[in-house]
């Protein structure tokens, strides 16, 4: 049983393009049966924030390879990745590393 939570969800490195170009989102997650972990946050984001082309952000129940996740400025690898339990006032930043232009390079973003 999870209480409602207030968190900041941020998108960078180009990922914001999938969210109407909006980088910072103040989000209130409702109280619910299941705990609020990153896994469930992704489901919520897909349903409530993602505006287009979900396959560019989410793959399976995780983020697409090449998207970095920082929780309170720390790599989610150090914090349990999808299993990390969200706390009130947490800040979750999704940075895409996947595109841009380099000499001779193209991209599938």
């Amino acid at each position, binding site marked *: 049983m999870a209480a409602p939570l207030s968190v900041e969800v941020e998108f960078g490195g180009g990922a914001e393009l999938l969210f109407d170009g909006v980088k910072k989102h103040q989000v209130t997650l409702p109280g619910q049966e299941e705990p609020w972990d990153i896994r469930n946050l992704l489901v919520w984001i897909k349903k409530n924030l993602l505006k287009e082309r979900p396959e560019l952000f989410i793959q399976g129940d995780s983020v697409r390879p090449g998207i970095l996740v920082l929780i309170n*400025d*720390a790599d989610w690898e*150090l914090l349990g990745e999808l299993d990390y339990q969200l706390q009130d006032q947490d800040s979750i930043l999704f940075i895409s*590393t996947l*595109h841009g232009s380099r000499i*001779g*390079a*193209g991209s*599938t973003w």
Partner: protein
Amino acid sequence: MPAPQCATCHKARAALRRPRSGRALCGACFCAAFEAEVLHTVVAGRLLPSGAVVAVGASGGKDSTVLAPRLGISLRLVAVDEGIGGYRDAALAAVRRQAARWELPLTVVAYADLFGGWTMDAVARSTAGSGRSRACCTFCGVLRRRALEEGARLVGATHIVTGHNADDMAETVLMNFLRGDAARLARGGGLGSPGEGGALPRCRPLQLASQKEVVLYAHFRRLDYFSEECVYAPEAFRGHARHLLKLLEAARPSAVLDLVHSAERLALAPAARPPAPGACSRCGALASRALCQACALLDGLNRGRPRLAIGKGRRGLDEAGPPRDGEPERAPAPDAVPAF
């Protein structure tokens, strides 16, 4: 579970685990380590001697942004305007902000000026149609290198640096394997090209830095960079190599650097060695045929036959010509042109 303590300063909470060593470091210690490693790459490889005037290829993107302030020698930013509407303008705005922030002189060179009006948008219109790919990145890769060279000469540079990171290099290795480009595979190793045929020496100080770490460095140093996709990028073959690389990396994080190291250790079979390069009959640049790649591409565009110098079409320029029906496919002739 709470993040572990930083393995270097033991004071702050760790912000990331470095892919190669597995050490957990805080943001400040990571940035210091990253900078030290890039500096070591430059110094140990004797890539940029003291007194060098260095043209930094600046796209406005994260890699060139990270690069510019860290080398401590005379830097000039050179940005290339390929003439891609709606994309390059925003990227150039980012480069201008960076030039202002770091107080570095900026020179912009435009395809429109250098190549007789052939912007990338014009190239795309010329190669569009008949259901075939527009091959924009093929043109742009060659022309951009030439434009960067010109920009470097304009600012009196002695060296050129670009922000290619380990992921870029690994993708290039995969692409060259997939295309049977033996010569580029063998030449792709090493940290730089000494400069042949009058070309300026080039190097890539971030070549051994993984893309993830470049992004994290930019984040922790609060570097402002531009990250929208080039409008022609979805068509590029590199996208397939990138996708494969990301899958490989998820299974084996060291795969990116391992690929780069593999390419460094390759030796070519005698039959695959490229011919000694000559000079382009038009511009004098390094070339394995009568015309260098840039002149050959522009020639095709100006003659209304844009594919003349691309891929298999290029075989029309070989002495033997393309294989006839009934003849087996030959391996592509190795190109004696710079690998990057």
